[in-house]
């Protein structure tokens, strides 16, 4: 499998070390820094869940270049699986594993037939699946309780319990989510420069050429699909246990669009970029809520959000913090265009 990406096969440079440790310390000490403010913890946890989702989607969209507009469906599968099992007495860890497995199984089942579609046709089909998933959750009343959500009256999702420790506060969930973020970052880092990661990039850059180079394109795409679904299922289960109530309202098309925007605005295929994009786009509306509360300006928060989105791409079309590999490609494209 000779893929030559000569100046790029060098390891990507270490994260600027000081900055890295500062960020890590800030994340670890965040509850103390914000004085255990429930809102700051809640928002940070919510952004953390988005980071897990975005890093997951980044395998499909960022590395393999498969334009997926229905990713939230697998988050929904994870959340609903966890909710349904928790109600039946499953505890957090097995329910989460089952949720991740369910998301992966559905993803593979959906993925196999549609992998030969390209570009925007894939986007519309995945959007279709996303909507189908939401509608099925909303319409299949006997299983999902329809629009009324889970659990039903008289049932309960129990708080997450890990090794006998019950997670009860926002701080607990904050650390659980940050653990999941760390896991996602580690997996993403390991895969990024592996043969698998480079093969995905080869497909993204030129599928035909990758195929001609002997890459098993279909299997590789399916691998990207599968790994991303694992992240979605994991995040879904944490979400269900944290919220302890799930309804189809949480899994609308808008959420899939938001995830794609986070990745593209941050920098496709760049872990740092994706995290930055997620923090920015996930954080702006919440920060505005906190700052503008008590004034009429609170009505403006999504207008501002739209503005931030447009300005972010206009000024950094390659993403706020693109991967080096990607930067080279963009240079290449510019040469080609001239």
């Amino acid at each position, binding site marked *: 499998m000779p893929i030559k990406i000569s100046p790029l096969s060098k390891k990507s440079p270490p994260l*600027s070390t000081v*900055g890295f440790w500062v960020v890590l310390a*800030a994340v670890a000490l965040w509850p103390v*820094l*914000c*004085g255990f*403010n*429930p*809102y*700051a*913890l*809640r*928002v*940070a946890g*919510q952004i953390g869940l988005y980071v897990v989702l975005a890093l997951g989607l980044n395998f499909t969209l960022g590395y393999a270049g498969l334009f997926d507009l229905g990713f939230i469906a697998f988050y929904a599968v994870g959340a609903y699986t966890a909710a349904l099992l928790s109600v039946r007495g499953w505890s957090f860890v097995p329910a989460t594993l089952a949720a991740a497995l369910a998301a992966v199984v559905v993803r593979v089942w959906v993925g196999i037939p549609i992998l030969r579609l390209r570009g925007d046709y894939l986007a519309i089909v995945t959007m279709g699946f996303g909507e189908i998933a939401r*509608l099925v959750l*909303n*319409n299949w009343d006997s299983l999902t309780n*329809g*629009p*009324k*959500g889970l*659990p*039903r*009256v*008289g*049932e*309960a*999702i*129990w*708080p997450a319990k890990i090794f006998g420790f019950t997670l009860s506060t*926002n701080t607990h969930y904050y650390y659980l989510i940050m653990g999941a973020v760390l896991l996602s970052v580690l997996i993403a880092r390991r895969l990024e420069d592996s043969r698998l990661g480079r093969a995905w990039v080869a497909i993204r850059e030129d599928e035909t050429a990758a195929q001609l180079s002997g890459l098993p394109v279909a299997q590789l795409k399916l691998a990207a699909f599968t790994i991303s679904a694992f992240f979605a299922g994991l995040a879904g289960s944490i*979400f269900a246990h944290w*919220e*302890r*109530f*799930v*309804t189809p*309202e*949480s899994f609308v098309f808008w959420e899939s669009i938001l995830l794609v925007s986070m990745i593209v605005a941050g920098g496709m295929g760049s872990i*740092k970029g994706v995290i*930055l994009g997620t*923090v*920015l786009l996930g*954080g*702006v*509306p*919440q*920060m505005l*809520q*906190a*700052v503008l*509360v*008590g004034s009429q300006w*609170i*009505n403006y*928060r*999504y207008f501002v959000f739209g503005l931030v989105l447009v300005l972010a791409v206009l000024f950094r079309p390659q993403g*706020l*913090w693109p991967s080096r590999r990607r930067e080279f490609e963009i240079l290449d494209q510019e040469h080609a265009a001239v």
Partner: protein
Amino acid sequence: MHPLLRAVCLGLLAALPVACTQKSKTVRIAVSVPLTGDVGTEGQGVRRAVELAVEEANKSGRFPFPLEARAFDDRADPKEAVSAANLVASDPNIVAVIGHYNSGCSIPAAQVYARSGIPMISPASTNPKLTSQQLEESWVLPKTVFRVVPTDDVQGSFAGDFIFDKLNMRKIAVIHDKTPYGQGLAEQFKDRFSGRGGQITSFDGIAMGDRDFKALLTRIKADKPQGVYFGGLYMEAALLMRQAQELGFKTTFFSGDGSKTNELIKVAGKASEGAYLSITGIPVEHLASAKPFLEKYNEKYPGVDVKPFDHFAYEATNIVLDALTKVGPDRAKVLEELRRTRFEGILGVTEFDDKGDTKNKIITMTQVKNGEFAIVN
């Protein structure tokens, strides 16, 4: 990373805790509803009603402290609702919450308020789970949830009896909008009406936000029902009436309080003539105590229609204000007071049962006559 970017990010992180720990001596009532997004129209209505009630209270001079209605935006998104609830919980000056709008938002947010001991009164969420979750074994928190809007079971059954007994109809088609409110209403109606021996010719859900129902109506028309019962909100109700008329489908429409707005008549026009709409309590325009509400509302917000749940929000706010007059600005005391509340307002007399649901289950049937709602029972 670009230094400017870094500064922005750090600023963003730093702004969060600073922003949520502002202090002031004003007593606040939070109103957590969708202020933006698809349901923003309805949420803004609730906010207006709460602000109106608070403004009146300030003017009346019966409080030694200034009051403020503080609006939070949940965008009708459950996770944003929980976030907003956490923001409410970080403000010690908030004594109670009016909200949320959607049941999907109210149910998870209620846990956050309970943890902080903040009383919450929902003016619009009708899913029984909202209050019943407090009786469950897993609920280890104080019971802080109330609602002034009756759960779906009351109205649907009332309409079932009304249509069966008073109108002597036996064949009804049912449509609902696939929301907890609309579907709940429709299911209750269906159970009661078919339990009485009536025939439900069809039972269909529609998609919220959809605007073309001609295909469905054409199919329903073929069954020749005597009436159509719709569980849902005014916009879909108006479109159904309009499109039925365009199809030459002559039938009587029935719906609940979510449809009883002036906008229904404006959009549906003549097609709404003769339609029956049940509402909880006594209709505001026929209750002496409620007239001032409508007048003040129209005066303060000219050109804006009262939305279906605005008078519930106004009532909920006044219940909180009443408790505040009695016990002062203290969350725990307000909560205690709400449990034994007996408030006479625009909905009639409101008392809460042990779950926190209103005991006021009076239903009134209205009918559209000459472009206005008239009481018919």
